[in-house]
């Protein structure tokens, strides 16, 4: 009974999870399952970035760096490149832990920075990490990357190139990650992240160690991208530096913003929607447009490729989002409160006059 009651608020989520679980039985198109598995990788990335950006309020524009580190950690430890073949499952966890360590290492130099400055430095790290992998061919395979990466096995069952087992593994990892993230959010650490986002000075004065709190945010954020990285390259079989350029960081951030910063389930929805939009919808849209162009004899429509225009469309989409729904599609209650701050203040002012005897004046404190 207790367990059922605790799950009650999540009935929509559980319903969606059920659909997600039977999806491969309904859709036999391997390409679609593959796209869904890739979307799941991006969901993991978005969940991780949401800890950094949504919870702790640290704007990280170089998040792909940790995705890259998790990917390369697995690729180097489970491929013919070094003739090392660590089994998949321990290496999956280890890749995430390695990414988490680098999360703290790359987070450390940024601790004193906030806002725009933090964004610029993390942007730099996001560029540096793939460049390092690119320019150390002896250790990382350079431009060619690493090929023949080990595929997972599960009690003797080989995953091979069939996307379905990857899909289910990713779903399982996402479920575990969400449970972990919800626990973190509702813990003293999650509260500390919020407090640091709200007001660092007040947080420190209440005994919160800003250094460890921020480093834990970077670390946990990177941890989940490490899972994503290891699963992504084991499915793909190859890894190369160009998979981790700025567009990855940008896309994941767009997913977090679209879904609603700070809202775990919103961020998942944002990632799924955006990924499916760019891989399936835009391809289909191009196809329709070409067909339409041929039918009506309009050459412009036959040539247009919406996949190539995706960042133009993202840009337009984000502008529209900021104008119409700045808090994201599924905002956390708290973020809605922040985004609509000016409205809140305006509503508050007249209400004060009607306050009870507890508060007589709203005069601002002396500045001095």
């Amino acid at each position, binding site marked *: 009974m207790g367990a059922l009651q605790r799950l009650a608020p999540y009935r929509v989520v559980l319903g969606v999870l059920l659909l997600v679980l039977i999806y491969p039985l309904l859709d036999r198109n391997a390409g679609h399952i593959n796209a869904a598995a890739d979307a799941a990788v991006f969901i993991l990335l978005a969940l991780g970035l949401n800890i950094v950006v949504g919870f702790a309020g640290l704007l990280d524009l170089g998040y792909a760096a940790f995705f890259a580190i998790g990917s390369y950690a697995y690729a180097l430890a489970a491929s013919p490149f070094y003739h090392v073949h660590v089994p998949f499952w321990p290496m999956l966890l280890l890749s995430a832990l390695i990414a988490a360590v680098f999360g703290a290492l790359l987070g450390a130099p940024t601790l004193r920075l906030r806002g725009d400055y933090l964004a610029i430095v993390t942007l730099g790290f996001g560029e540096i990490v793939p460049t390092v992998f690119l320019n150390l061919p002896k250790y990382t395979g350079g431009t060619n990357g690493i090929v023949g990466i080990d595929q997972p096995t599960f009690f003797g069952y080989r995953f091979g190139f069939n996307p379905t087992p990857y899909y289910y593994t990713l779903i399982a990892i996402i479920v575990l990650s969400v449970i972990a993230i919800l626990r973190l959010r509702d*813990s*003293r650490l999650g509260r500390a992240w919020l407090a640091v986002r709200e007001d660092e000075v007040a947080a*420190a004065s*209440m*005994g919160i160690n800003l250094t460890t709190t921020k480093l834990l945010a970077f670390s946990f954020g990177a941890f989940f991208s490490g899972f994503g990285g290891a699963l992504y390259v084991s499915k793909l079989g190859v890894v190369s530096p160009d998979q981790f350029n700025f567009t990855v960081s940008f896309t994941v951030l767009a997913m977090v913003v679209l879904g609603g910063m700070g809202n775990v389930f919103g961020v998942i929805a944002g990632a799924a929607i955006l990924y499916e939009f760019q891989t399936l919808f835009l391809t289909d849209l191009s196809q329709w447009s070409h067909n339409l162009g041929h039918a009506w004899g309009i050459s412009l429509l036959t040539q247009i490729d919406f996949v190539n225009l995706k960042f133009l469309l993202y840009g337009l989409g984000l502008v529209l989002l900021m104008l119409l729904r700045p808090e994201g599609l599924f905002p956390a209650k708290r973020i809605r409160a*922040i985004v609509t701050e000016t409205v809140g203040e305006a509503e508050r002012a007249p209400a004060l006059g009607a306050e009870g005897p507890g*508060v007589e004046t709203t005069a601002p404190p*002396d500045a001095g």
Partner: protein
Amino acid sequence: MNETTGEAPMPGGLLLDAHGVTKAFGGLTAVNHVDFTVPEQSVVSLIGPNGAGKTTFFNVIAGLYRPTGGAIMFAGRNITGWKPHEVARLGMARTFQSIRVFANMTSLENVLIGMHSHLKADPVRIVVGAPAIAAEEEAAHRTARELLAFVGLRGREEEMAKNLAYGDQRRLEIARALALRPRLLLLDEPAAGMNPEEARRLMEFIRRLRSERRLTVLLIEHQMRVVMGVADRVTVLDHGEKIAEGTPDEIRRNPQVIEAYLGKAAAT
């Protein structure tokens, strides 16, 4: 840690002993060689005209600014140069002159932040969902509710702090500071923006803090009359220097203090 300055072992009963505290910002000396002590379980007040350096002195004590010179002993330790969270964990909690509640967190969450350093949950046990953590959280929530009730915010637990009225935000800030279970409570102009009746009730509340919670309070105040009924001792700062120290009655009659205040008042 066992840092002691050779010259000043803690004399019995002094909770805070600041010696020769100086803070300069570039060419401006905001606090100049101030000696200041707070005995255990007393209410001590620091007053002075606007811009006298009261808040700067406060911030130096609380670790927000590193002093340019001088030493600060608190609870038997030399805390000079400690970080704010280290000072806080040693038992010094504060409120801010311009309220700094966590605006987009609920009242309850604000108070829980004050309890942060007393909670033991570590990341690994949080992620695996150790049962001890649920019990700890439950106890913390209970304590936080009690504190909110103590400051008169019963029933407002789930309200976002920014939606609370001004006076209630001040109370919340005090509840949050109390959640730290401090030995010394620093209140920075808690009566700012309050009318005389509100200020009087606040001072009554501060007296209760001492009698019921055995707290030591250091109170910054701009208006002299507010602290007269509550403070055991009063120190007056002007232009960053200590110009007088004594009982409230002595301070009231001190010509230098009167001059500092009247001079300032004439200028504004």
